[in-house]
């Protein structure tokens, strides 16, 4: 079958005939259907501002809390470590000074 033959056969399919009254009534039916529908409303604008503000506040709160806890905790730990280190250094110096001329190590009583 050629394309021409196929087109000829396809054009044999015709929509059903309708009267003039049908077409006049169709327009009226469409406009009636239109009146029953509510008018299209614009979509509500979505504002992201409240969410951004809440997120910022939450982040700031977490930062403050973390800074407070972390700062105090770290300071105490650091102080403890530094104190221990100073004590070790002093002890070491004291012990170091106990070496006699022969290289023997004699531990003296720790000085206060």
């Amino acid at each position: 079958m050629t394309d021409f033959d196929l087109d000829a056969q396809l054009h044999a399919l015709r929509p059903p005939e309708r009267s003039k009254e049908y077409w006049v009534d169709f327009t009226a039916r469409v406009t009636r259907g239109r009146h029953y529908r509510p008018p299209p409303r614009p979509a509500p604008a979505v504002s992201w501002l409240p969410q951004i503000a809440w997120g910022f506040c939450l982040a700031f709160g977490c930062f403050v809390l973390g800074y407070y806890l972390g700062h105090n905790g770290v300071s105490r730990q650091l102080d403890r470590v530094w104190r221990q280190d100073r004590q070790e250094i002093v002890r070491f110096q004291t012990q170091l000074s106990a070496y006699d001329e022969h290289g023997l190590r004699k531990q003296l009583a720790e000085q206060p």
Partner: protein
Amino acid sequence: MGDPDESLVVQCLNGDPAAFETLVRNHQRMIHSLTYRMTGSPADAEDLAQETFVRAYEQLAGYHGSAKFSTWLYRIAINLCFNWQQREGRRLEVHTQWAQNVAIDRPEAGAGRADLGGRVQAALLRLSAAQRAAVVLTVYDGLSHAEAARALGCSETTVSWRIFSARRKLKAWLQTPATSHD
């Protein structure tokens, strides 16, 4: 030369109801033919045609004039026909089978052209909705492949392929047997 419907659309958006009625009158036969060939059912075709214009009214503010108004209207109608296809899948199978049986069982009944119309409708309904739409828009409504692509929301290449594939199938289905009656 611009689209003559664009001025009617502008008038309608400015609140002129007669402008929309003119648009309906200008395109109602075209849309009826499209929906009938897509569904094969006069009743469904009428409902879909009416729904097409109602939707067009609701979405008129979204028509920007980038394509012809008729192309935009075709797109609404085609989408409604696709939705109808999904809803009525089973009923469509029955109707297609009935149409095929009529064509087979009554080869001598009525005018040959009417019987051929039934066979063509049955063959069209056997195509996928997308292929059927491409054939209907180009063969019956005279749209170019580019215009049909805009109406279908796909590429021109896709439309060309769908038409090629559909025509191949239709030729096989509509091939008249050697012993057919005149």
